[in-house]
């Protein structure tokens, strides 16, 4: 074992701990704003794992799209609906925690059990280059790529339509 392997394993373990602890916070913390910030930590940890897997472009996209865009949207939604959460007397507690915990632990057990029989190829095929990824996107996978663009347009129009207020002027904020 050379020093590079040890450093790689240490980084992977560190990012794994970061991802898992913040994911636990995401599903357990009552305060939604804190849960959203923990989700940001999870996303950054996963981006770190991407870098360890030599998928730098994906790590970049992950930070840009998830942390930059999705997390901002979530924080906006949390703040827009903050008044409802402030009346936490009406806030219902989490439902069916024990069965849900048992179900997800069983699921994890099944996944690890199935994963035991996986045989990772021993030869290292080397990292996937960005050039090959780009070529793949415009040759083999051009149809899914274009469909995704269509989905983007539909989602944009749909989101604007759904969130648009019924009356064109801004709804009176004082209520």
């Amino acid at each position, binding site marked *: 074992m050379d020093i590079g392997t040890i450093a*790689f394993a240490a980084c992977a373990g560190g990012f794994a701990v970061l*991802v898992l602890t913040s994911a636990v916070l995401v599903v357990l913390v009552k305060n939604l704003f804190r849960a959203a910030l923990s989700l940001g930590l999870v996303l950054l940890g996963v981006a770190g*794992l991407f870098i360890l897997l030599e*998928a730098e472009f994906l790590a970049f996209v992950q930070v840009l*799209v998830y942390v930059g865009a999705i997390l901002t949207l979530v924080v906006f939604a949390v703040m*827009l609906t903050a008044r409802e959460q402030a009346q936490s007397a009406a806030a219902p507690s989490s439902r069916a925690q024990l069965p849900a915990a048992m179900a997800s632990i069983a699921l994890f057990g099944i996944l*690890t059990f199935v*994963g035991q029989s996986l045989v990772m190829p021993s030869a290292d095929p080397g990292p996937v280059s960005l050039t090959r*990824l780009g070529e793949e996107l415009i040759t083999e996978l051009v149809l899914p790529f274009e469909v995704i663009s269509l989905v983007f347009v539909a989602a944009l129009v749909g989101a604007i339509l*759904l969130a648009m207020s019924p009356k064109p002027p801004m709804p009176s904020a004082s209520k």
Partner: protein
Amino acid sequence: MSAMRLMVTVSSALFCLGVYGVLTRRSAIAILLAIELILNAATLNFVIFGRALGNPQAQAFALFIIALAACEAAIGLAIIIGLYRNAKTIWADQARILRG
């Protein structure tokens, strides 16, 4: 390669935490956050196996998942804002204005 196994375990744990969140959370925004965890677990799995097998299509599909997650978050949050405006609630099980 044992690091790869560790990452596969991390991704399954992330997936199961997301499932737990979807099952137990009552706030619609928190359910959306848990769904993001599930999608991230799937992306991570794609990247791990793509790296182990040297396949560029895996990263392409990871990109597609990220793009779809962005669409899903935008639509989901728009629906939650609309729900809050119409039903004055963000709790997923109090959204019953369509019930006859």
